[in-house]
């Protein structure tokens, strides 16, 4: 089996699902003007772009594209804005967050466009960014768990489950660098499968009425 099959499957799935959620969010935002939807949309564009960049980098061999920077930072920042948007619901807060999200999005295009010029991500940066991504994902999971315990709905349950799988995925991906080399593939594949399951649950969450 091609060792890149599962990571690529995850990248493509992540990219398409995030893009679907982004388009749908912007579509509804255009009529409802709910700031949270805009933040979700832009964050999902970021997540989608990061997966697309990672997928592209694995095939482009002419020049080495170091898209790991953008993959980690993009996903971390994307999830961070989703988490922050869930924290409060006042209009002023969400409006400021929206502006900040736009600014962050523009700034994050720099590591994407400069991926050919950037050095390969070093272990320290990978650990820091991986921890941040894992921690933020865990906090989103806690937010949905709280939402489910206060108002049990199918949506919050599905979202809770989706972010549980993402957290496990990021945790396994994070720990793969601290295990013996022979076990790394097992960890990585396990993480990717968990990520794909998380995406399926996420699609179910936003599709179920």
């Amino acid at each position, binding site marked *: 089996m091609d060792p890149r099959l599962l990571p690529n499957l995850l990248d493509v799935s992540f990219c398409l699902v995030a893009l679907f959620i982004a388009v*749908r*969010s912007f579509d*509804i935002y255009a*009529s*409802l*003007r*709910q*700031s*949270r*939807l805009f933040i*979700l949309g832009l964050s999902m564009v970021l997540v989608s772009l990061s997966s697309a960049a990672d997928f592209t980098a694995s095939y482009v061999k002419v020049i080495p594209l170091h898209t790991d920077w953008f993959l980690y930072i993009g996903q971390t920042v994307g999830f961070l804005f989703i988490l922050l*948007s*869930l924290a409060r*619901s*006042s*209009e*002023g807060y*969400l*409006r400021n967050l929206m502006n900040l999200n736009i600014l962050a999005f523009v700034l994050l295009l720099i590591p994407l466009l400069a991926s050919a010029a950037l050095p390969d991500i070093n272990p320290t940066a990978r650990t820091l960014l991986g921890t941040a991504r894992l921690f933020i994902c865990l906090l989103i999971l806690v*937010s*949905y768990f709280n*939402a*489910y315990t*206060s*108002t049990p*709905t199918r*949506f*919050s349950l599905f979202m809770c489950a989706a972010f549980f799988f993402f957290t496990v995925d990021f945790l396994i991906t994070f720990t793969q660098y601290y295990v013996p080399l022979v076990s790394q593939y097992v960890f990585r594949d396990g993480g990717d499968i968990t990520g794909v399951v998380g995406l399926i649950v996420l699609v179910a*969450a*936003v*599709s*179920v*009425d």
Partner: protein
Amino acid sequence: MERSGDTFSSQNTSGYRLMIFRQLQQAVESMHRPEEMFQWLASLIVERFDVAIVQFWTCEGRISNQPTAQLRAMASQDPSQPAYLFGDKVTMTVEQLARGQQTIGALAVDRLFPRYLAMLLQRYGLTSSCFYVAEKSVRFPPSDYALAQRETALSLIALLFLRRPANQNLISTVGIILEQAIVLAENRHLLLPAGSGPLATPQEALIQETPALPDLIPRRKQDANLMLSSNPFARTISIADKQAHRLYEAIDGHLNLNQLCGRTGMSLLEVRKALKELARLQCIEIYTPDGQPVDVNTLFNSPR
């Protein structure tokens, strides 16, 4: 020299005037608010006198640093013409007309409005305009927050935009129609005499405690449960009503309703209706200028 077929000949205008007065006498029976009457009049003037746009404004009589001009009704001959564009921009001119000495006038647009506005109007083929200012000791009834607490007299201004040179006969006729309409509205208690005592019923008293409607600030309501316990993509409410949607688009959390009237080119009556629709859809929250929330149900359950 008057031509027999001229719309603005004194015979024609006096005939139209009588006919409009009789029709208004009948129509006013079923009206509940003064804005309805002004809207009716605006539509009829557009239709009968070949006027491109008719606007009815009110301006408070007292001297104030704050602009008090409010667009109450508007009718446009050409539905495709963005007449609401002119609502916001002519506010200052209306203020000046209300404070000025002249109560009647027919002028080319470049002599009445600022240069940029005159150019905009001319671009739409509106070359001349005329106005009539009626100063009256009347106020709007308590169901309208705008003037429920204000006992000062009002200036009612008819502003007409035309595609040909304005005729003095036309504006005189419109002036007479407006004066007659105000008398009719007073008789039907659509308009109340200024300083006619305190508001009577408890509901009215409650309204009196609420700041004037134009001073209230609507804010878009952010659904606290959206994305947490409710699916943002399921059963989304869309604002089907065009005016409600336009108002919703203009709400920025800072502008009050008076300013939103200017921004959207809607009259206060239209804004009130749109606001009611938005409140029904639970899309908005309303606050006083001090930041205190206003009970939307109380606001819209006021007597009509």
